[in-house]
């Protein structure tokens, strides 16, 4: 519906972008509440347990994934910056970089998961691994969702859908992507380190 032939006054773009940004922030707010349920449960399960429920996880892979996600946050923000400037080529490259980093994240996650599966560690093993799978699983789903949007953005960017006036999808996907990073920032110490 965006390429429907109409003439837009200049303020239109700003207004619409604000509209969408507000929508995205609300959505992220509801995402916060979604993870509140999980985090709350996790905190409760840990703090009310008589003895520690924590089991060791692979810190190296976790830390690696943290670095990957933080880097992808950087590449994402650069994609946003370049799309604002209307630099299509750089935008595309940084989107691609973000996408690839997301893939890396998923690959590392798969390595981690398959190691667990090989050792027959499942959500049913103990309460900690239940939380581990729940939290990383839902986070992984979010990464997957982000990857799909990144892919679409990349294609649309190549097609020339975006210019310096209109880059809303990149902006709000950026917000979403940083949020995914944000969740991981808490998950990593919460599950792997502490």
């Amino acid at each position, binding site marked *: *519906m965006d390429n*429907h032939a*109409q*003439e*837009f*006054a200049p*303020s*239109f773009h700003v*207004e*619409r972008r*604000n*509209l*969408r940004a*507000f*929508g995205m922030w*609300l*959505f992220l*707010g*509801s*995402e*916060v*509440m*979604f*993870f*509140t*349920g*999980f985090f*709350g*449960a996790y905190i*409760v*399960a840990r703090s*009310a*347990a008589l003895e520690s*429920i924590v089991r060791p996880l692979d810190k190296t892979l976790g830390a690696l994934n943290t670095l990957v996600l933080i880097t992808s946050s950087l590449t994402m923000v650069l994609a946003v910056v370049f799309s604002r400037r209307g630099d299509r080529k750089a935008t595309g490259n940084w989107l691609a970089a973000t996408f690839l980093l997301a893939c890396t994240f998923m690959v590392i996650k798969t390595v981690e998961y398959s190691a667990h599966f090989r050792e027959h560690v*499942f*959500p*049913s*093993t*103990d*309460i*900690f*691994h*239940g*939380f581990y*799978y*729940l939290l990383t699983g*839902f986070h992984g789903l979010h990464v997957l969702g982000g990857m799909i949007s990144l892919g679409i953005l990349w294609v649309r960017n190549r097609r020339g859908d975006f210019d310096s006036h209109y880059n809303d999808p990149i902006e709000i996907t950026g917000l979403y992507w940083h949020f995914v990073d944000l969740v991981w920032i808490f998950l990593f110490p919460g599950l792997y380190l502490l």
Partner: protein
Amino acid sequence: MSVTCVADYIHPEPTTFFRKYVWSYDHKVIGKQYLWTSLVFLMLGGTLAMLLRWQIAYPSQPVPFIGELLKNSFFFGPNGEVTSDGYLQLGAMHGLIMVFFVIIPLIVGAFGNFLIPLHIGARDVAFPLLNALSYWLYLPAGLMMFSAFFVDKGAAAAGWTAYPPLSDAAGASVSGLGMNLVLGAIFLAGFSSIVGGMNFLVTIVKLRAPGMTWSRLPLVTWAQFITAVFQTLATPMIAAGGSMLLFDRLFNSSFFIPYGLHIGAEKVANAGGGFPLLFQHIFWFYAHPAVYILILPTMGLASDIIATFARKPIFGYRAMVISMTSIMGLGFIVWGHHMFLSGLNPKMGMAFMISTVFIALPSGVKVFNWLGTLWGGAIRLKGPMLYAISFVAMFIVGGLSGIFMAATPVDIFIHDTYYIIAHFHYVVFGATLFAVFGGLTFWFPKIFGRMMNESLNKLHWFLTFLFFNLAFFPMHFLGEAGHMRRLATSTGYEFLNGMAPWNEFITLSAFALGISQIVFLYNFVYSVFFGPTAPSNPWEGNTLEWTIPNPVPHHNFDKVPTVYRGPYEYSGPEATALGKDWISQDHPPVEGVASNQH
């Protein structure tokens, strides 16, 4: 045409049937889709309630017609009687369907969608695509819910609250796949609700027409705004709780399963280490705000209807807004009142008791304001008004019975008895559904461009009001007697022996109530197709939707209106100067008359 602001921006009018009625972006069509779907679910949910009532009054007696027909399937046993498992399925599904698939979609999906853009002078909601998505998540969710009846071992049977371990541990309750389907459906419906709420928030914050300040918003829209906050921020919690429950069920994790849980003689397969109470916290963190989702929009509907038919400004508009906002604030911190006896820390019970008691204050202010609006008005007792008045009357009863429960020592006795059932049916049927009937009859001319039959409306109002009270008031007596909820039959208990006649009385009244709804059903469906064409402003209302012709054009307003005054300036100097008792919000200021609006 050059588009200057987002409010001007509109998707083109669709030409194909598919884009017009199925995958439509038009908020009015989406509103109607919600309306029809939820009305169908209302019939389903109501029918389940009738079966429930039959079993309570005539335990293990074959259900006439239906039971005979469906022997040995669904909830029925070999003689066509409701089995005890069947009863629990009926109860859980009745509650879930009514809350998630009838009331919320009806008052938020249907009324919110239809009214918000019209009330704020917008061409559509902020994100029409998401709006369509929201409906198209709701419908499959409903079908998923419905499909739970048909799977092996039947639908969910753990109450609408789905407390674990009953809803969680394998073998604890009868249902298997059915429970999973229901949880999935709730997740989808919740997602639809979040998307819808977010959309409404953005719409109301960003798309108001010029001059439509916050203090000129019709209360319907204010109420939808507050509701949308609840929807966006509370619903994710139940999505989280439901996901964890599903995780437990599908992958045998133990978020809600403590150590050493035994079902029968067997220890469950789950490792343990979880807390059943945790689910209650998560559930009620959502579900208490949810009960306000069930009432706030209808408070808005009733306010508009009452002001219009009293021909008088709303008494204390500002107080109305403040009280709704404080209901929102308090609404987030009272969830523990459902858990007074659950093993909750008694000190927290005390805190929750205090917040709960004080939530009566904003509700009371609203009640007094409605009364103040009526006081000194020129009241026209048309159909919609009768419903709206009943809303107030029944809300008082339901709200006041909430006070007994808020008093913790009293709640010890009446918790999980029919007192609770009476309380919330007074608020969800007595208040909410009455306001919904009011809203439907009031906005029917705008939604369908035709009028409903006034006499049939009055007849339906009378029958419903009568039988509703006959059916639900005696439930207070059952509660006083200690009659527990969710009992397939109470004949086993000596102390409930004397209540059997009341149970029968309630059932008969409930049947009469159900049958009375046919009047409305007939009137509604008939009028949609054959009702007399409606003028554009049949009730002489002020708000923007009445300024546009019937049927409402695709883009709502030819020109985005400019708003000059509040929504309730009935019988004011400006109106009088024009020789009427009403004046549209977008009527330019009348020369020489002081406009006293904000």
